[in-house]
């Protein structure tokens, strides 16, 4: 009944939309203009350059934090990598806890919120502007970001709220308030409130509008151009059914299909790379050369570096704090074990999947180079590399995959829509948790947030990519500002946990249940 109603709803919208195309374009433009004006000052502040340079201070903030955590925990992401894998496999899981949220499930849920358009469209944006060299910085950011994720997810489990009815709530807002109070530090409550505000904005931006925007770009690329608000309304309706209507079957089907689509995406990228194996060495050459010379992209080396770091942070969300909300549901007596598991997230998301997208785009020849100099040709605006059909974002990735597998854009379109939907559902939860932290639990309060969330789906689909991407990045990076500040104060708690756990693991006090 639901499917039939949805189909009828979509058909009505499409018919009405075609008849009012002219009017709708005006509406899209109006939404876009108002959106850009409203969010402009916030975006400008977050991406303000460091004094006397072109380097945004926020990117430096993330890189320094990831480096500090990597050094402070003695390269935990490499030392405990094998142990992390064993934890995910369930080797250390108590059989008596069967039926609780496993490490694998917490990781998979967190990944379903991060693996998605950031890996497909975000990487295309990074490579399109920063060139293949951005990939190098993206990988480096991913590897360093593993330590950030480790820190925040350990704290997420340690300081979560466990309610009498058995449900849990966790995340930066809880560890900032409870952790600071435990250490006798002032300001934890203020940071928690600030984080919650930015988390709500992030959930409406990167977790919602960016997804709706790129899903519309993908669908209209196949069906032909039509107003974005139509896609927005259809998406908003389905999201409404899940988060307000409580129709879990839709979410459940999505949760099962999304991992399959992820595997399909990586599989397709692998097939293209295997077929074009002779170009892989050249592509890595472009990545390394571009990382340090820029190969003619706008901004040169710094341009590649900024794009790489920005996209990695947007894709894997290390240091942002969102994953700590998802990971805090796991059942474990040792909070640090969830930290170990979570550090695999940036590895899977950025180092593996994003790199594959970047390699496919680089190998595809979609980015236009000057045959004389080997350097990239910039587009008319001089801001990005010119592409064969002028594609950007997800359309560039789609065109790159089509060079290897002609029918893959259709699969990609389905994947993008599902990834977008899955990310929206995840972020609606993150946003809701921040909302209830601020305003308290209650059905009416929750409904208000959910309705706002659905409204932003329509706005995101109708707005142009530029303002949406800027706002999405700004909102998510604003979360990182507060979260990382708190992590600096709380990281000694994590180090105590790490030392205690490491000592007990070496002494044999902590043993695996399975060899």
């Amino acid at each position: 009944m639901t499917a039939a109603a949805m189909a009828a709803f979509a058909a009505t919208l499409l018919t009405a939309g075609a008849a009012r195309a002219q009017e709708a374009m005006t509406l899209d433009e109006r939404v876009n203009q108002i959106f850009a004006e409203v969010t402009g000052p916030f975006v400008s502040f977050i991406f303000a350059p460091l004094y006397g340079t072109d380097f945004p201070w926020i990117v430096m903030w993330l890189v320094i934090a990831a480096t500090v955590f990597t050094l402070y925990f003695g390269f935990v992401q490499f030392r405990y990598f094998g142990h992390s894998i064993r934890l995910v496999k369930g080797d250390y899981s108590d059989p008596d806890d069967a039926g609780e949220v496993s490490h694998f499930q917490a990781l998979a849920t967190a990944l379903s919120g991060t693996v998605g358009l950031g890996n497909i469209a975000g990487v295309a944006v990074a490579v399109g502007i920063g060139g293949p060299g951005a990939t190098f910085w993206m990988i480096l950011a991913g590897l360093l970001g593993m330590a950030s994720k480790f820190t925040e997810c350990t704290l997420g489990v340690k300081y979560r709220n466990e309610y009498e009815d058995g449900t849990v709530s966790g995340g930066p807002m809880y560890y900032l308030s409870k952790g600071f109070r435990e250490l006798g530090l002032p300001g934890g409550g203020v940071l928690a409130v600030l984080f919650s505000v930015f988390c709500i904005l992030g959930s409406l931006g990167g977790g919602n509008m960016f997804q709706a925007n790129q899903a519309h770009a993908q669908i209209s690329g196949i069906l032909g151009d039509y107003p974005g608000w139509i896609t927005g309304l259809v998406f908003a309706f389905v999201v409404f059914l899940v988060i307000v209507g409580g129709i879990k079957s839709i979410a459940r089907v999505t949760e099962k299909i999304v991992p399959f689509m992820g595997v399909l995406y990586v599989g397709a990228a692998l097939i293209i790379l295997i077929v074009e194996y002779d170009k892989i060495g050249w592509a890595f050459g472009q990545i390394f050369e571009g990382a340090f010379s820029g190969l003619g992209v706008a901004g040169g080396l710094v341009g590649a570096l900024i794009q790489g770091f920005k996209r990695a942070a947007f894709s894997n969300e290390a240091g942002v704090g969102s994953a700590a909300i998802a990971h805090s549901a796991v059942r474990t007596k040792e909070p640090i074990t969830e930290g170990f598991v979570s550090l695999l997230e940036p590895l899977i998301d950025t180092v593996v999947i994003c790199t594959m997208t970047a390699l496919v785009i680089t190998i595809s020849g979609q980015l236009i180079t000057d045959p004389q100099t080997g350097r990239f040709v910039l587009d008319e605006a001089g801001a990005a590399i010119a592409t064969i059909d002028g594609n950007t974002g997800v359309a560039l990735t789609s065109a790159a995959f089509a060079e290897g597998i002609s029918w893959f854009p259709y699969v990609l379109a389905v994947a993008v829509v599902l990834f977008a939907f899955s990310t929206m559902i995840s972020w609606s939860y993150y946003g809701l948790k921040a909302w209830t932290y601020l305003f308290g639990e209650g059905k009416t309060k929750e409904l208000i947030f959910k309705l706002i969330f659905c409204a932003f789906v329509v706005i995101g689909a109708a707005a142009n990519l530029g303002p949406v991407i800027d706002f999405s990045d700004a909102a998510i990076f604003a979360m990182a500002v507060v979260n990382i500040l708190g992590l600096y104060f709380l990281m000694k708690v994590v180090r105590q946990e790490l030392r205690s756990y490491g000592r007990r693991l070496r002494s044999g006090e902590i043993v695996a249940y399975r060899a």
Partner: protein
Amino acid sequence: MTTRLVVGLDGHASGERALDFAVTQARLIGDCDLVVAYVIEWSPFSFHSAEENAQRHKRREEEISTVMSRVIDPAVKKLEKLGIKATGVVRHGDVADTLNAIAKQQKAAQIIVARSSEGGFSSRIFGSSTFNLVKGADLPVTVVQ
């Protein structure tokens, strides 16, 4: 020495058949107690939404409580009325693996289950729980028709 038998229940008539058979065996053995077990099918490698994860502990407790009140407690009471010492256990996991693990943990002499009503495509591909138990158990298994 007391002989211990583990009986796998499924909340259906097939489980009742297994229980009846176990009662007969217990009487024949004499010094024998029964462990009635119910395994809630669950995999640590399944996928859930963040909201489902947040409520998982609560759901797990509810699942265990429901099985206890509807399947295990009535079975234990029935056995006690018949003068047979019995305990109940509810676990989550793969049915075959978990029943085997319970039996090993309880140092049971054998596992008694009924032929399950599972059928169709999935059981042809993955095998039924009963078949998997017979194939992989570390101790004798009796399958009641």
